[in-house]
């Protein structure tokens, strides 16, 4: 049961995630210290710059706490947050947490001029398409066993789950469509 959501607030678009949760009436806090994870049952790692967020995870001793948290709780990563959840190879200034079994290519579409928005197909809701915003977005290059695809754009996976954790290459926090949050929280509550 999701009683309280933590939004990792080290860098990036954490305030808009918070606003979406506020709209849905879900209790939430901005997490700046590892001890604040204690009373949360879902952690959102927002979009931002993956290298900047990764630095702050290391500098603020979050790594061990998030890995521990993820053993019994859910983590939801968007864009840079998804890169951090992945099992992609460690590079200079970026140490993924390897919480989920998939690999991404960073900035796979190119620079900002190649950023875009487009209609996504949600596997769990075929009533209406979802406007997905992709900002210097990563692309999923490899999916591990047990990973399920929850949304696609032009047949490419853009939202995935391993049953406990969730990740999107796009930004569900921008715009007013709350369906991604409703689905994830509903799934955890099942």
């Amino acid at each position, binding site marked *: 049961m999701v009683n309280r959501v933590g939004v990792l*607030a*080290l*860098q*990036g*678009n*954490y*305030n*808009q995630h918070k606003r979406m949760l506020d709209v849905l009436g879900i209790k939430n806090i901005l997490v*700046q210290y590892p001890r604040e994870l204690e009373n949360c049952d879902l952690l959102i790692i927002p*979009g*931002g*710059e993956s*290298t*900047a967020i990764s*630095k*702050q995870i290391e*500098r*603020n001793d979050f790594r061990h706490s998030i890995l521990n948290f993820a053993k019994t709780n859910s983590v939801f990563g968007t*864009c*840079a947050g998804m890169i951090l959840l992945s099992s992609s190879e460690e590079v*200079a*200034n970026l140490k993924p947490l390897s919480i989920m079994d998939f690999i991404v290519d*960073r*900035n796979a579409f*190119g*620079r*900002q*001029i*190649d*950023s*875009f*928005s*487009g209609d996504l197909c949600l596997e769990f809701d075929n009533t209406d398409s979802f406007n997905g*915003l992709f*900002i*210097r977005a990563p692309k999923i290059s490899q999916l591990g066993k047990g990973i399920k695809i929850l949304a696609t754009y032009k047949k490419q996976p853009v939202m995935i789950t391993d049953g406990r954790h969730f990740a999107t290459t796009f*930004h569900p926090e*921008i*715009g007013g469509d709350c369906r991604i949050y409703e689905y994830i929280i509903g799934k955890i509550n099942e």
Partner: protein
Amino acid sequence: MEQGTFEVKVGLAEMLKGGVIMDVTNAEQAQIAEDAGAVAVMALERIPSDIRSDGGIARMSDPIMIKNIQKTVSIPVMAKCRIGHFAEAQILESLEVDFIDESEVLTPADDNNHIYKHDFKIPFVCGARNLGEALRRIGEGAAMIRTKGEAGSGNIVEAVRHMRSIINEINIMSTLSQDQLMAQARDFQAPYFLVEQVAKIKKLPVPNFSAGGIATPADASLVMQLGAESVFVGSGIFKSEDPTSRAKAIVDSVTHYRDADKLAIASSGLKSAMKGLDISEIPKDQMLQERGW
């Protein structure tokens, strides 16, 4: 699929919040910035304090220098064009920089018009000293505002003045009736729909960052607490005695801008900050913030 829309442009600005954008003049400095945890770099040939002391005309940087920086780091790379110089902006767009700063730090190319930024696929950031100036720039298509401060001064007083002006004016807008908002739009010489939007959402319609005089971790904390969503540091890092330590300290101080214990640690043992200027030492005709219309 839609590209270059206002939503997509503002999207990148949203991702840079809670971070530090650093002025760099070569690939080596860009690497120091990325290693420190910067969210983006601003590629320019001379940092503002050198532009100020060198005099002469300051123009867009050499594309080779910008490309070298793009090759070196994975974070977004921004570059500056002169106010109104849309040809420089077209060149920067062809280089695929991630953000263009139509900047008062360079010598203005047009004393009446700013660039019509909606014509470009790449987002623009522009400086502003008050709400009217911010809304005029957003009306022209800016996807991010930075308060101007006084670039290259190392003095935070102007950045504070401009951030307080914008926040105060936003607060006043939220108390006005429709007829008063129309009068306000007239006084601001800004589009009415933007004035109305600010009154309703009680913030700018695009992210609002701070720039122009930030030299210490405490300066960064100050402007963040006053309402900035991120900070630009120009001369403050690479004009200091130990840029690597100072860059990291300013990044950490933006992440924890309300935590005085963390700020105390970040402020410790940084060697000398840039020397800086009292605003009264700057001749009136050399005030960069006066540029922009």
